[in-house]
């Protein structure tokens, strides 16, 4: 041990390595990172015989690993950004360059990583695993984030148990493991993020950062959608797969946030960015959303009316009225069974139409075929009304031959019924229980939130949850990874808002109590002086 005022002479490590790089022992991690990445780049070049893309992809993989271990919250932002920007399904005609990134595919399907022995995992799942590992490591070392209870813990546990039970039951009934995992993957992602986000995002600063990421990613998508809409000759939804995709959910989030910052006065830089981007978001939403999205948005906006403070309600209603009138007029023109044949021509491309019985085998999106699916479900439910069929079990459909259709084509648009079929009454009950409890708790918390920004975020979360609950009657949202991950991320912010609110309220109460105490002392002194 060196005496005070005397430091050891610098060793060879400091003299020959750190000092030439302008580093010292406090920041020598930079040297090790340079060493690691340099070594990795050289090895990748040698292994791939000079292929720069393999070398860069390996570097990217290691960068994500290092980032996740050092900062799980930054890694979560990266995950959210990737989920919004990349597409789960390849959409024909939609040549947005990030759509070609295989973030949701199995690792072995990505050419640059095909040599890795990880064929059961996707890049997304590896990212999840890393975030979980880093978070649990930090929690166990009590370094950084602290353990936070999740909202609606009892319904969450019941839902998780029913989903796992349904997977095990389906596989036991000679079901396929791969199909079971495929069917339940999005729900499992949601449950994982619902649990993990409270352990990572714990302050207002982190919530703001998360929303900056969300705004950036959705803006990029919205701007590209506007470009695509103009380029495609102003035709709404000329690609059937784009209509009703998860992109509408992200745009709705930003739309509601934009409406919120106008209605409720808040001083935040995000307000001006949102206002500037709102027209693009509106056009993007129009370009990708079908009528079901408008309907779900209308229900969500009606819920939002309940949540707006009484002082801002008038401004909100005035703001929203022109849009409501436009939606009503639009729907009256395009969806009514009237004589507006010419106007209906474009809409006919995206609408599900009634088909004749002999055609329904060919068109699995037709309305008649949806009826056939419902009939099959009711038939299967009569056979196993309480516990359902389980995930992964290939149930025989009465009306349609199983040889004709894939598993995906048998899934009904109405996801409540699909969940009822797969996880039985306990599964659907637990799902409804979790979401209604969450809604009630979030709205209850809203009355205590004093920070206007956090109030807006909480309102946006409530509206998005309602939107998702309604849209899942029309689109298989419980199978879409991106929408379920996004939902899990947003719902997981509740504990951070709760903690920040009550921390502030607690401080406010404390200072008020102190003030009262001081006032009390002053009064006592005055009384004693009077008597003396």
């Amino acid at each position, binding site marked *: 041990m060196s005496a005070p005022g005397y430091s050891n002479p610098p060793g060879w490590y400091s003299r020959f390595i750190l000092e030439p790089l302008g580093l010292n022992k406090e920041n020598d991690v930079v040297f090790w990172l340079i060493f690691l990445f340099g070594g990795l780049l050289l090895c990748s070049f040698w292994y791939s015989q000079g292929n720069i893309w393999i070398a860069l992809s390996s570097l990217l993989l290691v960068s994500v690993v290092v980032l996740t271990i050092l900062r799980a919250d930054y890694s979560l932002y990266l995950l959210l950004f990737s989920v919004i920007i990349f597409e789960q399904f390849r959409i024909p005609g939609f040549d947005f360059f990030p759509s070609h990134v295989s973030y949701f595919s199995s690792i072995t399907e990505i050419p640059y990583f095909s040599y890795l022995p990880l064929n059961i995992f996707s890049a997304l799942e590896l990212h999840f695993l890393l975030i979980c590992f880093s978070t649990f490591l930090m929690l166990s070392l009590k370094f950084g984030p602290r353990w936070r209870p999740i909202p609606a813990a009892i319904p969450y546990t019941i839902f998780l148990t029913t989903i796992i039970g349904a997977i095990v039951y389906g596989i036991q009934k000679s079901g396929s493991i791969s199909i079971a995992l495929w069917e339940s993957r999005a729900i499992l992602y949601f449950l994982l993020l619902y649990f993990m986000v409270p352990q990572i995002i714990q302050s207002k600063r982190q919530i703001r950062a998360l929303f900056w990421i969300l705004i950036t990613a959705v803006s990029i998508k919205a701007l590209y959608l506007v470009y695509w809409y103009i380029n495609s000759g102003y035709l709404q939804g000329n690609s059937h797969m784009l209509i009703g995709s998860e992109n509408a959910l992200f745009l709705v989030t930003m739309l509601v946030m934009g409406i919120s910052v106008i209605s409720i006065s808040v001083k935040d830089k995000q307000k001006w960015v949102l206002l500037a981007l709102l027209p693009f978001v509106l056009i993007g939403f129009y370009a990708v959303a079908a009528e079901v999205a408008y309907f779900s948005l209308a229900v969500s906006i009606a819920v939002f009316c309940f949540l707006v403070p009484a002082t801002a309600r008038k401004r909100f209603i005035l703001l929203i009225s022109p849009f409501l009138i436009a939606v009503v007029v639009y729907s009256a023109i395009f969806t009514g069974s009237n004589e507006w044949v010419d106007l209906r021509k474009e809409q006919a491309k995206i609408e599900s139409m009634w088909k004749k019985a002999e055609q329904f085998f060919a068109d699995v999106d037709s309305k008649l075929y949806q009826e056939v699916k419902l009939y099959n479900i*009711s038939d299967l439910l009569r056979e196993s009304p309480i516990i359902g069929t389980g995930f992964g079990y290939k149930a025989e459909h009465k009306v349609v031959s199983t040889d004709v259709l894939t598993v995906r084509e048998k899934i009904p648009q109405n996801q409540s019924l699909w969940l009822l079929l797969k996880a039985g009454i306990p599964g659907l009950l637990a799902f409804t229980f979790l979401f209604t409890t969450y809604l009630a708790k979030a709205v209850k918390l809203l009355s205590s939130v004093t920070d206007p920004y956090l109030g807006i975020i909480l309102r946006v979360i409530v509206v998005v949850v309602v939107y998702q609950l309604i849209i899942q009657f029309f689109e298989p949202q419980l199978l879409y990874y991106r929408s379920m991950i996004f939902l899990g991320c947003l719902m997981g912010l509740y504990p951070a808002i709760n903690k920040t609110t009550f921390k502030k309220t607690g401080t406010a109460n404390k200072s008020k109590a102190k003030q009262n105490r001081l006032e009390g002392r002053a009064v006592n002194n005055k009384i004693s002086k009077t008597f003396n």
Partner: protein
Amino acid sequence: MEILLATIFVVFLAVIRGKIGHKARSPIFSTLLMSLLLVAFIVVMIINKEPINMQGP
């Protein structure tokens, strides 16, 4: 359609429970009751589904 309307009704009930319900008590029992009623309604509706009209409207 009936199932959708019932769900919207339950969503509004949950929001109202959060807004004007008892602040000190957990909403868990009321939401459980709402969910039970909704699921019972959905099960009855789907099990009693009538055979489809293959020719369309």
